[in-house]
């Protein structure tokens, strides 16, 4: 039982953490919570299955094309659902615009791909059993993204520019940073991370259009718990969420597992509205 809780819990937690990072990367560049994050995860699984299982492309090419699909949706999100509402951020219109785009993509996927879950291909030809690739692939993807983002943000000029935009958009623009281009690149990067989450978790979650809302909701929990824009917090909270959810599956089971997750979520937010790792917002008076 413990082995199953840890392997499945950490793997699913890594997928939630990656979706949480997707939210954060988009949020840092625009102060917008884009609800296309879960849709990107869903699309990563569907496109991976489409390119590799259905069209028979090599795994590496299928992987790159799935990420490219995520990048495209990320850019589309920025152009269609975020840019037009940036001027009125305080009205939170982005909730509607990003949710609408997510629903459109989900319905389009349902019509073109079908409403049934379809198999996601085995990426490596290794016999099943024990600590299977369906568990370690999401962990590997999560570790890769954490290291990659750290290197990007700490050791590259464009990474520092991202941080500058995230810190203070107006000051960054005043310094001559191309805010719009950086935002676009951020959304493309978030698209790739979201698609990677769905691709790496494809063997667990299958290529299913209904994974979009699931990842949108469960991926948001690490963001809220870990602190908005805080990637390290999202990873820790994502892993805790996965482990807690899987423990609840074993201990209470059925729909009560979901109830347990959201009960804890609400209690934590009541106790620490800024999230476990977030800093309390200073309000200007």
């Amino acid at each position, binding site marked *: *039982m413990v082995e*199953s809780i840890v392997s*499945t819990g950490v793997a*699913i937690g890594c997928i939630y953490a990656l979706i949480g990072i997707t939210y954060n990367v988009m949020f840092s560049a625009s102060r917008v919570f884009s609800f296309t994050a879960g849709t990107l995860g869903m699309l990563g699984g569907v496109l991976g299955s489409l390119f590799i299982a259905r069209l028979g492309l090599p795994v590496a090419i299928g992987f790159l094309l799935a990420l490219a699909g995520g990048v495209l949706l990320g850019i589309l999100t920025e152009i269609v659902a975020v840019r037009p509402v940036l001027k009125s951020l305080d009205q939170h219109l982005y909730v509607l615009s990003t949710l609408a785009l997510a629903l459109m993509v989900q319905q389009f996927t*349902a*019509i073109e791909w*079908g*409403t*049934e*879950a*379809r*198999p996601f291909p085995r990426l490596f030809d290794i016999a*099943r059993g024990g600590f299977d690739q369906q568990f370690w692939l999401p962990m590997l993807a999560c570790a890769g993204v954490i290291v990659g983002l750290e290197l990007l943000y700490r050791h590259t000029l464009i990474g520092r520019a991202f941080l500058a935009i995230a810190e203070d958009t107006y000051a960054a623009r005043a310094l001559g940073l191309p805010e719009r281009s950086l935002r676009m690149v951020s959304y493309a990067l978030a698209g790739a991370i979201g698609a990677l989450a769905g691709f790496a978790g494809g063997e*667990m*979650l*299958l290529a*299913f259009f*209904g*994974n979009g809302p*699931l990842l949108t909701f469960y991926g948001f929990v690490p963001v809220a718990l870990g602190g908005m824009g805080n990637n390290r917090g999202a990873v820790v909270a994502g892993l805790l969420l996965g482990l807690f959810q*899987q423990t609840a*599956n*074993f201990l209470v*089971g*059925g*729909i009560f*597992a*979901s109830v347990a997750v959201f009960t804890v979520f609400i209690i934590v937010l009541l106790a620490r509205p800024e999230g476990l790792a977030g800093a309390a917002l200073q309000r200007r008076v």
Partner: protein
Amino acid sequence: MSLTRRQALKSAGAVAVASGVAKPAIAAKDPIPVGYLPALTGPSSSTGVGINRGIQLAVKEINDAGGIDGRQLELITRDTQSDPTKAVNGAAELTRGQKVSVVFGPVNSGESLAVVPLLARTNTPQIHPCWVDSLTDPQKYPMCFRNAPTNQQIGGAANRYVMDVLKRKKVAVISDTTGYGTASVNAYAPMLKAKGADVVYQGNVDAANPDLKPELLRMQSAGAEAIMPWSVNAGFLSRIINTRGDMGWDVPIVGQTTLGSGQTKALLEKPEYWAKVYPNNFRPVCYAPGGKLTDRTSAFLDRLKSAKIDMGDTLLWWIALGYDSPRLIAEAMKSVGTEPEAVVGYLNKLKGFPGVYGDITFTTDKHDGYPDDEIVMVEANSLKDGAFNLAPGYSA
């Protein structure tokens, strides 16, 4: 040449008499409009596509044989696109615009739930094959008939197989959290208990939950001797089958028809995991022990093959159901004409209509025409030409 008033009146009278005589003669040869509301596109179209193949074949055969007293059946199709709203629009247009004599469909319960009350108000006879129990009611919808089983019948057949054929008393009943899933578990678990079963596990699980091992371990530790899943979600069903296989647990899985679908098969980790999985099906379109179909079904298969109708990507019972429906309508109209009340009067007394899918019987008080004893369980891993082998324990 001048025309006197008397001559003009005579001519007009002659034309009027001639047209008055000729009109009924033309009307008698007019095609009979039959409304048809399949889901040919959209997310729930696989059933409709299969049924449509049978419908088109039957209408062609009826018309090639001279139609109904010389009148051709004209199928007026409105694709519901798997959408209840479009089904309602299609039904309104068929009854008000096209003035159809009778409607077949919709073929999905979600669409029928919206259409049945509407057609009941337009005085149009309706036949549909949807399973949701409330979709027939001779009091509320006196012109609506079902030539397929109800959900109660489907669950009852699975329960009988588990308890009477497999002789298992400790049963786990599981579903997803959809309306269909929860309603099925809530209906079937009490039916099992009433038959004397011990329902050791009863649960609804989110279909997107990637790991069902906790649920199956719970069933196993409760001593379940059979698992009965009620869901149309192939992903959910395949996870139950895969988890059972990974656990090495030799317990039969008995339930919804989707257990035997190609989508479920595609999601299995190993082909051998499909053994001991028994979905619902219908005896007339199943292979009896020895691999034989009934004579009626064999003849039907020959007709399908000669008409070059593809069976590889669909199920035989869908095509058979589609094939039987226009024949049932034609039979009624041949006997009593096309007036709605006459058609309904005929259907109310229908006894043992010999369909390929099943023998249909209606009475004034019972508009659910499919017989209980023709609902059976089959071996999921035996699919060939759209049909399955009967599950072990059934006689030929």
